[in-house]
């Protein structure tokens, strides 16, 4: 198994890509802390994941609240004392044309998609630096590279993750902590299914492989970046988009 006895935290892991990553990590032997804001939802997912083994654990906090992140990591530290992998997956999508974007939307999107990753990375790197080993994977988006009408805020928040990834990779490489990002394309999640049918088909048509991606296909790339298979890979942004952006 690729992640035997490795300890991972995955933010926003109760559904979609985050949940797929959690399942794959557990299947590969990791102990996975499932993060989400909704306690009931997190506990339900943990219970489901633990039907086969006891490798899933709850870690309930709001990534956008620095105080909550700090308390959660302090609690996590008391329990485990080590962290091998952090996946910054928590994110929100709240589209609007620029003239109709509210200040609250901007603040909330950046607070979750961008600031949350910075807060968790701060604490994670401190834990990882003690044993001079670790992997951080940020889940960005293809939109960070291409932009999209109505997604100025979302794309900005996800593009920031790319800068954060490259900067952190440079800053902590000497500690043997690797920082990489994945930019998923059109992936079959609740988010993708929420768009109008005509737009959905247009998106699929724009993909070179002519199909929507599955969250498990993103998870596979994240597993590569989290495991020793990518031990000499850092500061990279890897597209998982079926050739949508070539």
């Amino acid at each position, binding site marked *: 198994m690729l992640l035997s006895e490795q300890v991972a935290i995955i933010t926003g892991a109760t559904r979609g890509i985050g949940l797929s990553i959690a399942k794959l990590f557990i299947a590969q032997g990791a102990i996975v802390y499932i993060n989400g804001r909704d306690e009931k939802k997190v506990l339900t997912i943990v219970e489901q994941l633990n039907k086969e083994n006891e490798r899933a654990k709850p870690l309930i906090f709001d990534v956008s609240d*620095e105080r909550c992140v*700090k308390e959660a*990591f302090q609690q996590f*530290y008391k329990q485990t004392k080590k962290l091998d992998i952090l996946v910054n997956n928590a994110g929100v999508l709240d589209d609007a044309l620029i003239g109709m974007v509210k200040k609250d939307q901007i603040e909330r999107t950046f607070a979750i998609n961008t600031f949350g990753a910075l807060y968790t990375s*701060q*604490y994670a790197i*401190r*834990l990882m*630096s*003690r044993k001079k080993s670790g992997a951080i994977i940020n889940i960005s988006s293809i939109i960070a590279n291409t932009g999209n009408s109505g997604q100025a805020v979302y794309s900005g928040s996800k593009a920031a993750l790319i800068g954060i990834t490259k900067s952190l990779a440079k800053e902590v490489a000497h500690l043997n902590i690797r920082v990489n990002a994945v930019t998923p394309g059109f992936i079959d999640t609740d988010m993708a299914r929420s768009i109008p049918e005509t737009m959905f088909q247009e998106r699929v048509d724009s993909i070179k492989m002519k199909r929507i991606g599955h969250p498990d296909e993103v998870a596979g790339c994240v597993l590569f970046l989290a495991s020793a298979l990518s031990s000499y890979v850092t500061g990279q942004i890897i597209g998982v988009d079926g050739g949508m952006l070539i």
Partner: protein
Amino acid sequence: MSNQIMIKCFVDALGIPQETVEDYLEYNSIPQWDSVAHMQLVAALEEAFDIMLDTDDIIDMSSVAKARQILTKYDVAF
């Protein structure tokens, strides 16, 4: 005992002689205590005392005396 442990953390993280670890020694006052070494010092202190410092405390840790003061907040007895 705690004081000796703290001093050892400074010695190891900053790579300076033990006799130079005095209360008045301040962050950025010597080339060895730069931001990179500061984070190594934080890691050493956290490991030695089995604690996890707040980010604000890391930023506030501006001298040896201040480090001691901050550590007492985490139930480290001097």
